[in-house]
């Protein structure tokens, strides 16, 4: 019992040390992630593949998958515990998928409804920051509307929150909100989330 407690305390200390030692991560401390992890995107931007690459390189997550356009049924093909949705839309990405933003939003709404039903931990990530922010009503903002208010945890590249949009969403939903200075800093968040 004492050994376990000592290890637990040590783990928290290490976690805090990792986070505080890096000024590139601020806001709420990273929350604990679960496995299996499903990584996907909202808007068919490149952020989800970038996240997959960073997650893979950390070596911290043993059991994860990537799906570009999961349908509700795909969430049940494996006992997923965490759904990581990377926000950001590109015309090239939507074009490559052969869908419109309206179709993408419909898919996201259905996916989130199923994720909630399955009680998955939903992590919303704005990895590319203000690059994937746009005018109100635009594709990027609609993707944020479809995912962020339902997330249990939010990770946002700091320059994507210059207007305080994610502060407001987190305040309303109660989701912890972690900021990263650069996309590369997401690796440290993932390591902290999946630290043993």
């Amino acid at each position, binding site marked *: 019992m004492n050994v376990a407690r000592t290890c637990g305390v040590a783990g928290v200390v290490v976690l805090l040390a990792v986070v505080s030692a890096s000024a590139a991560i601020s806001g709420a401390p990273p929350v604990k992630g679960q496995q299996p992890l499903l990584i996907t995107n909202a808007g068919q931007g*490149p952020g989800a593949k*970038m996240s997959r*690459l960073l997650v893979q390189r950390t070596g911290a997550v043993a059991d994860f998958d990537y799906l570009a356009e999961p349908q509700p049924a795909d969430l049940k093909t494996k006992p997923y515990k965490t759904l990581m949705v990377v926000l950001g839309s590109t*015309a090239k990405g939507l*074009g*490559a998928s052969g869908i419109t933003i309206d179709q993408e939003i419909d898919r996201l709404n259905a996916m989130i409804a199923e994720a909630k039903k399955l009680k998955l931990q939903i992590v919303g990530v704005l990895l590319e920051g203000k690059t994937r922010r746009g005018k109100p009503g635009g594709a990027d903002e609609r993707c944020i509307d479809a995912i962020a208010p339902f997330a249990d945890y939010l990770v946002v590249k700091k320059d994507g929150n210059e207007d305080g949009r994610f502060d407001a969403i987190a305040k309303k939903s109660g989701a912890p909100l972690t900021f990263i200075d650069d*996309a590369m800093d997401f690796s440290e968040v993932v390591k902290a989330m999946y630290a043993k």
Partner: protein
Amino acid sequence: MNDRALVGRRVGLLLASLALMVVGTKDIRALRAYRETVVVSEAFTRQAPLSTYFDGIRGTLMDVPVFVFDSGVPGGSVLILGGAHAYEPASPVMAYVVMENITVTQGKVFVIARANMSASTLGMLGNAYPPFFRVKTPWGEKTYRIGDRETNPLEQWPDPFTFVHYPSAQNLAYQDSRNLNRTFPGRPGGNLTERTSFAISELIRREQIDMTIDVHEASMGYPVVSTYVCHQRAEEMCMMAAMILSAEQFPMKTETSPKSLRGLTHREIGDFTESFAVLMETPEPFIDKFVGPMTEALMLTGKDEFMQTAADRGLLYAEYDMKTGATLDYRVGRHLGGAAEVIKQMGEFYPAKKVGVSWPTYAAVMEKGIGAFLHDPAKAAAARVFRH
């Protein structure tokens, strides 16, 4: 009016027309006759005409030199493709800065500075911009052509009603029949631009080029400005490079080449050769439609009040501040840094394809200007001076 007077009048009109034609085409002839100078670095090993790889362009303006910088040490290979769109001058200038300063310790680097030489011999109709721009150096000025987006109609005319891309049969705009970045992978029996694309594809195949970097500039109202656009096989390298550049040097995005958009290098070179296909875009206010006068100063500084208005209204896809603009130094520096990083990533992902290469960094170019890295041909050994 008698017959003699009528003949005299007609001869007079004819001579006046000829005189107008001579005066009116002076700039066109000067642009077509001008040759850019490059002083290659000591890493230069050989050059060959592009027609070495496909004879169907021999004797045309498209038969441009291919410069090779070979370390002699086994490793990967890279092709830097400059000037596919001539009116995006940071592209050929980046290629020239590479050629003048490159060192190679592993693998080899191929450079084509003016992939569409023909396009560099005219300006864009209706844009009324100057034919040349000058770069200041410590020893004087170096002059470069601005050029057009597409192959000169003097080389390829007339355009079809609709350009049908080969081999996908996708219908493209008529002028894309002269657009080198819509005619890949090319075909040996096609028009001149298609044959040039085929020659470049053949070069890539025969030399087993591991990575092809097609260098461009984009208007700031275009979503893929400041972006790598990469074939699926190269996307992870581009993603890592973009994240590292954004964290350490300058903002860089990445996009994956759509499979349904045909004819572009990032699509077709990736599909029809073994090469990792990468395209890079910098912000170039000069080619945006809503800027003020398209002057040499705008080309060099990128400072424009209308661009600032567009930025203030959130209409651009890249950061813009008129105080700093988007200088040629910035744009060339970005390309130098962008190419270096993605080549480095190729070595990280595939160690056998590592290319040990260096040239002026983004930081060095921003500090000293590109002029500091362009050498005086008058003081260089003749064997290292090339004109094209």
